[in-house]
Structures are given as C-alpha cells and as structure tokens.
C-alpha cells in the first residue's frame, strides 16, 4: 500500500472490540479516514463513541483486552495494525506523539521535569546528558515556559495545570514527531488557559508542519482548531468534511443535534434542544443507524439498515438515509439561526 503524497496516515475499516466479562464490546465499528499532511483533523463525539480508542490504536497503546478485528492503519509504508509491540517503540514518540487529557496523571510526580523531557532523548537518540539538557531547554522555551533553567529542576506539582500541559507537549515534541495526537488536551483546563494551549498547538503546527489528530467533544474548540472534522457516534464516523462544511452545511441529524444542544450566543432563554436518551450500549450494537432511537427525523429504514456514506461534495460525506434521493427533504434545523458570522440575526 503506497499512500498518496499528501496523505500521511490512512485508517481503513478499523474495527476494534474489547473482551469483557459481559461479552464483546464493539467500540469501533469500521472507521475510515485520511490524515493529510499539515492539517488538523478533529474527531468529535460523545464519550464512548470510540474516538479515543481509534487514536490509541494509531498510537499502539490499546488496553490488553482490546482486539483489532479488522482494518488497517497505514503510515508511510507500514501497516501499524500489524506492527508487533517490540517494534512499535521505533514509531511511537519519534514519529507519532500523543498528548493526554489530564496533564497531572501523564507526568511522573516524583521525577523532575528536566529528566522527564530528556528521558526519550537520552534513551532513543543516545544523546549525552548535556546535549539533551540543551535540547530540553530549547523545547521548554518553544512551548512557552518562562525561566526554563530554573523550571528544569522542578517537580510537576510546582506547575499550574496549563504549564503542566505545556510540559507534556514539550515531551511529546522531544523526538520531532510528524503526527501529534491530542486526546482532549484542554478538557481539564479553564477557558483562558485553554485558549493559550490551543494557540500554542496552532503555533507549533505552523512552525513544525505537524499533522494533528485532535479529539474533543467541545464544538467551540473544534471550530477553532479544525481543518477537517469527523463526527463519530457509536463506533462509526457519521459525517466528515471540511470544518466549514460540517458546521455550516451539516447533513447528519446527529451533527445537528450536537450543534443544537449547545446554547448559541444569541439564543433566547428557554429550553435547549437536548438529545433525548443515552448512547447505545455497545455490548449489543444496534441494528441499522445507531442514532435512530434518539433521532427525531428517524425513518423506518433507519432502524433496519445501516446507511452508507452519501456524497455531499467532493470533500463532504455523511451517513444518513435522509440524503438518499428518495428520502423526504428536511431542512437543517440549525441553518440560518445559529452562526454569528453567517448573519444569524438577520435570517430570523
């Protein structure tokens, strides 16, 4: 498998289950996507939709009870789903880096920051301690830590949440990876700190030409970061496309529901359009469209057969029966009243 020049990572029909005492949990059920060079791909979805599992499969850090049933993850000329654990360390960190949600639990509390940053450099790059320190200080400056010489000898608890996340980013970047996977990196942070971290990630992306997979459930963050978006529900991608397409011209009822359940800035007080019910239990994956029981536009066929991807534009696809030529035409409920930049008020 040779990937096209502009694609750095391709996931094909990825299917992952977890063995549990209660049975097989089908966490990811056939996910396809391409990560293009230098872009940010945002994966959006509720908890349990399989977005974290997908990214962990790319990184090769799935839990012990996970099974990759089917599918391939192509990176350069390698199929990551076939790489054995003892060989994976050559890829992990040096080609694909990852940032996790909670910066405190991803750092070692009893190890000085400097040692944690230089650890990979010394072990993998066989750098001397001195050279590694110089490199670590450079990295700390790059991610915006003031007084790196002093901070180098401090422990994680000396740092605030935002600073800790910067350290984690510095560690992830130490080996100059091409791909950075960010698994909800700002969920544990405040709005102001979140804005700073997002700015930092955007800056690093530009400076280093990183390709980023960004996982989150906050649509505001998605709008800020994404070049392309994949919306996941119950282990499947239900809609993907460019950021503008998915926000302004979304076609899947789940995407509508997600956008509607956030209060828009000009929204009058009253009820929010919450999504009724809860996500399906993936021990028993539902027949047909998994979102159908919570979907107010659901048709009979939604409960019987899984929708294929329908093409909206060359870059925008959605898996919803509503897009079938025979389906009734339903106007998107969010069109024209949701986005400030699209003149939300004037359309009312």
């Amino acid at each position, binding site marked *: 498998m040779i990937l096209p020049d502009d694609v750095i990572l391709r996931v094909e029909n990825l299917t992952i289950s977890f063995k549990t005492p209660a049975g097989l949990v089908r966490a990811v059920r056939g996910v396809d996507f391409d990560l293009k060079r230098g872009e940010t791909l945002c994966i959006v979805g509720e908890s349990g939709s399989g977005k974290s599992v997908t990214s962990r499969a790319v990184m090769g850090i799935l839990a012990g009870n996970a099974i990759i049933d089917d599918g391939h993850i192509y990176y350069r000329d390698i199929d990551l789903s076939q790489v054995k654990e003892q060989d994976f360390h050559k890829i992990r960190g040096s080609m694909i880096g990852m940032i996790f949600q909670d910066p405190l639990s991803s750092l070692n509390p009893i190890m000085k920051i400097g040692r944690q940053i230089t650890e990979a450099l010394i072990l993998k790059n066989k750098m001397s301690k001195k050279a590694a320190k110089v490199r670590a200080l450079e990295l700390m400056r790059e991610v915006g830590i003031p007084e790196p010489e002093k901070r180098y000898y401090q422990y994680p608890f000396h740092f605030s949440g935002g600073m800790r996340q910067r350290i984690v980013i510095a560690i992830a970047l130490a080996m100059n990876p091409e791909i950075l996977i960010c698994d909800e990196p700002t969920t544990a942070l405040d709005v102001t700190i979140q804005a700073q971290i997002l700015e930092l990630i955007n800056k690093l992306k530009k400076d280093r030409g990183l390709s980023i997979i960004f996982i989150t459930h906050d649509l505001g963050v998605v709008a800020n970061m994404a070049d392309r978006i994949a919306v996941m529900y119950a282990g499947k991608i239900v809609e993907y496309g460019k*950021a503008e397409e998915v926000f302004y011209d979304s076609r899947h009822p789940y995407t509508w529901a997600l956008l509607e359940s956030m209060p828009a800035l000009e929204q009058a007080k009253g009820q*929010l359009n919450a999504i009724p019910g809860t996500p399906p239990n993936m021990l028993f994956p539902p027949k047909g469209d998994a979102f159908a029981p919570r979907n107010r536009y659901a048709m009979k066929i939604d409960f019987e057969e899984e929708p294929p991807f329908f093409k909206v534009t060359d870059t925008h696809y959605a898996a919803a029966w509503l897009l079938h030529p025979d389906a009734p035409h339903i106007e998107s409920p969010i069109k024209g009243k949701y986005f400030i930049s699209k003149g939300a008020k004037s359309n009312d």
Partner: protein
Amino acid sequence: MTENKEKILELKKVRQYFSSGFGKRRVVVKAVHNISFDIYKGEVFGLVGESGCGKTTTGRAIIKLYNITDGDIYFKGHRISSGNRGKNLEIRRLKKEIDEKKQEINNLISELKGEEKKFDSEWVGKEIIEAEQELKDFIEEKNARINELLREKKISKRINRRNPGIMTSMQMIFQDPIDSLNPRMTVKEIVSEGLIINGIRDKKFIDKEVNRVLELVGLLPDHANRYPHEFSGGQRQRIGIARALIVNPELIIADEPISALDVSIQAQIINLLNDLRKNFDLTILFIAHNLSVVKFFCDRIAVMYYGRIVEIATSDELFKHPLHPYTKSLLSAVPLPDPDYEKTRQRISYNPSLRKFTADKPKMVEIYPGHFVYASQNEVKSYRKELNLE
C-alpha cells in the same frame, strides 16, 4: 425589575481564609476576599471565574460547609453565618489602645511625682487624680465596646451552630456525579438520607417522596434499588439533583453541575434545572466556567477573580458591555462553534500588574443600574465614557 423582588440571600463583606501551619510557618490563603452580593427570589445567579478564584469556596461557605472568617450571610432576612475576624481585630486594637493609654498616663504620673518637690504638692495630687480619672474613663469606654463585641461573638457562635430549619431550605449539587454519591448506598438510601437526617421515620412516606423526586428528575421508581455505578454520568447527576430536591429547598447551590458531563447530556441537565426552577420557584446559585451555558441559563452573573468579585450585571448586559478588563479577557477566550468567527476572534489577555492602585483604591461601583464593577475612580470615569453615560 429586581428591586421589587425579595432578597433570598445576602452576603455582606464575606471573607473566607484558610490557614495552615503555626508560628513563622503559618500561611494564610485568602480564598474569598471581601465579597458582597444579593440573590433575589426565583432568579438564577451565575458565579464565574477561573479555577482557584474562590467561586466554589463561596458556594460552600454559603451552605456552611465552612465557617466564614469574616462578614455576615443572611438567608431570607435571618443571619445564618457570621465571621469573627473583624471583631477579633477590633478587640485586639482596643486592648492595645488601652495599654498605650495606661503607659502614657503612668509616665505622666511618675513625671509629676518626680516634680513634687518643685511644685505645690496639693496641685500635683490634684493633677494625679485627674489623670487617673481620665484613664479610668478611657478604659471604661473601650471596655464597653469590647464587651459589646464579645457579646456579638457569642451571638455569632450561636448563629453558626447547625440549624436544621435552614439546612433543609438550602441544598447543594456537586460537580462530580461519581465522587459525590456513595457507591455502597442504593439510590433510595442516597436520596432519602436528607429526610432521615431530619427525623422522618415513616417508611411509606419516605418511599412516596423518593418516587416523587425520582420522577421529577426523569428517573424511574424502579431505579431506586440500584447502585450508582449502574447509571451513566447524566443519570448520576440526576440522582444528585433528586437528593437535593427531596427536602423541598428554596435555594440550590449548583457547583459546576454540568462540567463533568458530555455535551448532549449537559443540555438535558440544563433543561431539567430550568423546568424545576419554573415549577418550584427555585432560586439557583449556578457556579460554572462554561460561559455560553452561563449566559443562556443565568439571569445575573458575577465574575470572580482572585477571591474578589470584579463585576456583577444581568447576563445580557455583561455580555454586551463587559467593563472590567478581566471580564473582557474571559469573554474573549470562549471558543464558539463557528469556524469563521473563530478565525477572527482576538483574545485579550489580562495582566493585573498593569493596574496600579496606590492612591486610587478600587471599590465596587454601580456604574449603571444593576451593573456593578470593581474599579478605581479613574477607571469609573473611563467606563462611563465607554458606555456613553456622560
């Protein structure tokens, strides 16, 4: 509009300090630093700020999980908490004044005694008696004040005791629906605990009440015998709300009730709180850091920064005309689900060290009816210009 309404909660110059260590190593953390605000009946009052600014501490101090350090909290006109720091400081000051006065008078007397030989002894004696009388009067006056303060301290000690009548009309919903429910108790035990603590033993009544509140929050009666781990995050938060509702409270303090939940579930919980508030005429103190939800849900908003409230206004007013630079920076940091808007959004950063108040001490100023801002005189002038009030 709010002026005609009944005040349900009133905070007056509340301070909450935490200290650790003794002697030289004593560290005092000023978590809440002199805040005052009122909450009117039936409104949703939002408290926003970054983590560590004291918003949770404020909520916990109101419901008396902490004894406040200074100030007074009134609930429906009754004082429910009172802090003694101010009184203690005044007593200490008065005692010091008395000591100083004693020293002064004693010095004067000994001086006079030393000069007895030079002057008429009768005159000196008279002077001494006069000085002693002055001292006596002074001490009496100050002691009266000290006694008054001590009496007040006693009263506040009585006030600060547990008061079941108030405890039932104020309830709290916590942030983390996993940590705030005891995993070894069934839902029924969790929800009915409030009734049992209040001395209700009638099992039939308890069952009826539990079923009633479970239905109110959208759970089924047969959920009552399950354990918390069997529920999803949103359902757990509903259990937390049911537990708060069972004693028929008037004020609910919701401490970030939705920040641990998924987006789609967040909307469900907000809708639930909205319904409950309308149906039961509840007042809610809503502590949060998600500003778009706060704007949607709250009638008035207070912005906190480092233990102080820097701005209070109605939610529309606050978002339209934010005045305090911290509020501006907070609003500018909120990402909205709108890519084109996001591309042009400019973040304003707030640097408190740029604002120096050496001569011009800031205080809470009502700049516009209902819009308060913590600012110095000069800033007030510039804010007024910004709003075209002058």
